């Protein structure tokens, strides 16, 4: 199976081509800039250099969030529309799970997170075999860390936003927290491709971003409806 994987859901822009399970090519940048301009040229380059034509693809994989709303949509629009044009399935992989898989061999829990401003994070908790211990959510980091403390086991934190929350993590979890260095902190598109290989594709039109959060206007509107 030939898979093209796309991730523009956060700072990282990643494109990978997996051929019969082997990584044929991978392109990663770690600058949250111009994903819309740079994505298709990157796909073009990786495809060309790995000698892959669009019609050689059997499946497209994409990180479907959470992350930057716009970033998630750029990747997902591209993945869905390419798959639709080529008549092949598209598979969405959680952007958090993609990061968690960087810690797949850690003896303990793996906690990927993305900063969501005002003390909030998008996060979830995974066991080493990548089964989900705590579902993905948008939560105050402080509350989340206190929940994790009760688990008593070592936890590997994977995040590009480690710096923002490092102090609080160490404060609450102390020795229980393991903080690796930079190359482990972000998702790799080849890992997204290999996860997608194992998944059963759903209906193409129904694949939508996993924002984990309502738009502000809608949240406010719902609040007002409740008051009425």
């Amino acid at each position, binding site marked *: 199976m030939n898979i093209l994987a796309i991730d523009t859901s956060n700072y990282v822009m990643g494109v990978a081509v997996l051929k019969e399970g082997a990584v044929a090519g991978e392109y990663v940048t770690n600058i949250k800039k111009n994903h819309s301009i740079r994505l298709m040229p990157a796909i073009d380059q990786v495809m060309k250099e790995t000698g892959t034509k669009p019609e050689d693809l059997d499946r497209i994989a994409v990180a479907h969030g959470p992350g930057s709303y716009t970033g998630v949509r750029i990747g997902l629009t591209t993945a869905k529309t390419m798959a639709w044009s080529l008549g092949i399935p598209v598979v969405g992989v959680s952007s958090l799970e993609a990061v968690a898989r960087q810690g797949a061999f850690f003896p303990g829990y793996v906690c990927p997170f993305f900063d969501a401003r005002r003390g909030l994070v998008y996060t979830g908790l995974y066991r080493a075999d990548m089964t989900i211990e705590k579902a993905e959510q948008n939560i105050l980091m402080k509350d989340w860390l206190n929940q994790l403390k009760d688990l008593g086991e070592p936890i590997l934190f994977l995040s590009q936003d480690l710096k923002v929350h490092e102090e609080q993590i160490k404060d609450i979890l102390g020795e229980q927290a393991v903080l690796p260095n930079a190359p482990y902190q972000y998702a790799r598109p080849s890992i997204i491709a290999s996860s997608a290989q194992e998944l059963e594709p759903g209906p193409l039109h129904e694949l939508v971003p996993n924002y984990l959060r309502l738009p502000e206007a809608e949240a406010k*509107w719902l609040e007002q409806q409740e008051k009425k």
Partner: protein
Amino acid sequence: MKENQYVLAIETSCDETAVAIVKNETELVTNIVASQIESHKRFGGVVPEIASRHHIEQMTITLEEALSDAGMTLDDMDAITVTEGPGLVGALLVGVNAAKSIAFSKDKPLVGVHHIAGHIYANRLEKEFEFPLLSLVVSGGHTELVLMREHGSFEIIGETRDDAAGEAYDKVARTLKLPYPGGPQIDRLAQEGEETIDFPRAWLEDGSYDFSFSGLKSAVINRLHKAKQRDEYLKPEDVAASFQASVVDVLSTKAYRAAEEYGVKQMIVAGGVAANKGLRAALKEKFKDSETELLIPPLHLCTDNAAMIAAAGAVAFNQGHRAGWDLNANPGLDLELYGSRKHNSK
């Protein structure tokens, strides 16, 4: 141009997810529009983040509907065109990236299109252009007089200095507590009312084809405020009729003067406000004895749609315009610059 040329277009600049196919530049094959208006109604206007969310949900569904309605496949298409700007950036991004994905996957030429060029070219699906022509572009975001001396060339001879006409409609509608979208509501009320209040007309300096609607908008709001303080009842129908009379008077008079000065063969009305009954009637009256032919598109081509993008995109494509894989959403895309860019690549 080969015998039969088909161009597919995507338009997602605001709150409509639209896909269309046009044949040989001027024949409409299919025109599918998935409107989000119901979803935005509760907020009293378009919420950009919600618009973007709907676009990504609707994009591939709308594409599929267009192809199945046309009984065609992507292989039949000669070019993929898309609204590049202006518009809401998050909304535009969905269309632009979808168009790039189709073009890349199916190895098709890609063309970026200016939204207003699209509104103007909507008319060419009804009637062949004769140059020079003038277009009065009136929508929620635009009020412009555009001179075209030939295909793909756009010269703005007048534009609004503050609010667009459609914006003034929306604000006045909100003051009158009319539901969103306010423009059609005012137009409907105005048909039932009479011009009893003498609102100002902003003619600006002699010979200028620019517009200004913020003074008028304030005048309407002040008048309503005063009436409330005095416990005086103003019929909303009459307020709407008086407001609309001022807008269409200025628009139709300036359009007529410009048409005379530039000796144009056609006067084309474009944009969402072209659906306005009051404006249509005023223009018909002004141009009834004129040498200039007045063209007003049917309603389904006035509001945002992709057929107009296909019509403008097909011309750009045949003039040799091509976009690269780095095509981006351009929320502030300039019409004149867009036109000159196309000419350079000829």
